[in-house]
């Protein structure tokens, strides 16, 4: 666990740094892979992700400020404060997805091939979420004395952060684009979603910070099961489709 990297007077939040690096690395890879795969414009992928990200951060701050308008009106400069404690996750998600949809519509991007092209970036991001949790000590496990237990927050616990990192790495290998692989559009992304939901169901069982519903059911597992069922139903319908054709190679010098 290393939540803070102290470099001189600078206190760097390690989890945030890991996520940023993951995002940058994932997007760079996705752009490169899109160049090889030639089903969507690599620039469009990068711009789409960037648009969603910027809109997401802006939305997260505005939704937070909207809860305390009087405080922010007195000090409007706080709207651009880099502090991550003043963000609203739900607001960020909504505006990020909306911005991506609008950008995709305006650029007439094909939905499924774009989601497929983004899947490598999402897989890398999922791995770094696990590593960020490990650095911060979040998403911690239930107490257990096992040879591989880690001591965290005063107890020996299941290293749930490592479980999720390993499963995410496995998912990344399974959904990684392969040369000459012909499959219906959307299959790569939907497989990622289904496997991600399945991994969450497994890892959540060992987590100590779950929210419970109906007595002892973990709400994250119930939501993940719904997502698993939905994505598998979509896979079933996509399997009946033809693979997307590649964009012809640019022959001009």
């Amino acid at each position, binding site marked *: 666990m290393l939540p803070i990297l102290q470099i001189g007077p600078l206190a760097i939040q390690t989890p945030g740094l890991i996520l940023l690096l993951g995002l940058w690395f994932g997007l760079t890879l996705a752009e490169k892979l899109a160049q090889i795969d030639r089903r969507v414009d690599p620039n469009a992928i990068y711009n789409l992700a960037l648009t969603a990200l910027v809109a997401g951060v802006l939305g997260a701050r505005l939704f937070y400020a909207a809860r305390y308008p009087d405080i922010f009106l007195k000090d409007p400069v706080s709207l651009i404060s880099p502090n991550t*404690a003043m963000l609203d996750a739900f607001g960020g998600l909504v505006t990020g997805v909306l911005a991506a949809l609008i950008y995709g519509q305006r650029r007439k991007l094909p939905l499924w091939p774009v989601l497929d092209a983004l899947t490598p970036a999402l897989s890398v991001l999922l791995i770094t979420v696990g590593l960020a949790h490990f650095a911060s000590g979040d998403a911690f496990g239930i107490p257990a004395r096992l040879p591989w237990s880690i001591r965290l927050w*005063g*107890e020996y616990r299941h290293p749930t952060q490592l479980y999720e990192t390993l499963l995410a790495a496995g998912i990344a290998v399974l959904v990684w684009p392969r040369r000459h692989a012909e499959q219906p559009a959307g299959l790569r992304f939907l497989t990622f979603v289904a496997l991600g939901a399945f991994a969450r169901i497994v890892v959540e069982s060992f987590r100590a910070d779950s929210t419970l519903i109906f007595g002892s059911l973990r709400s994250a597992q119930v939501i993940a099961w719904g997502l698993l069922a939905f994505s*598998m139903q979509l*896979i079933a319908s996509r399997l009946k489709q033809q693979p997307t054709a590649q964009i012809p190679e640019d022959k001009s010098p």
Partner: protein
Amino acid sequence: MPLSSRNFKWVQIAMLVFAAAWIAGTAWLATPGEGGRSPSPRAGFPAPAFTLTNLEGDPINLSDYQGKVVLLNFWAAWCPPCKAEMPAFEALQQAYQGDDLVILAVNTTYQDDLSAAQAFVDENNLSFPVLLDMDGKVSNAYQILAMPSTFFIDRDGIIQQVIIGGPMSETLIQTQVRKLLAEVP
């Protein structure tokens, strides 16, 4: 992967049934309950208890403030961002007088100059309790890695937010405090 839609039907059924059985099984076998939440210096955990003396030499217990919102700050006189956020705390103390808000500023005396700390408190007319951590035990219990570090503790004694580094803006401090004060005791 060569997967026909007919084969997939069976994969689909098997995975959904297995996942549902796993959810039900683990809910029945391992109810998370408290999940071993012994006092720890992180969000979601009970704040570690302590007793420290203030500048006047009177003992102050964190547990004295059960039922109130506590802003617990760790600072030192040699740390410029720590000093920079103190006026914001004082403004907060004045603005929320009469509300259930307590500001406790723990001076990390074991690695600070007590006379410099005292002089800073006097110069700025700080009216909230300044506590002295002479042996570093409380700073250790709160795993202070960087200064300033601030813990926002709710009425039940549970840490709800940890801010490491500073100075925090008045807006950040006020929104966090307002959120905790709004929670019904």
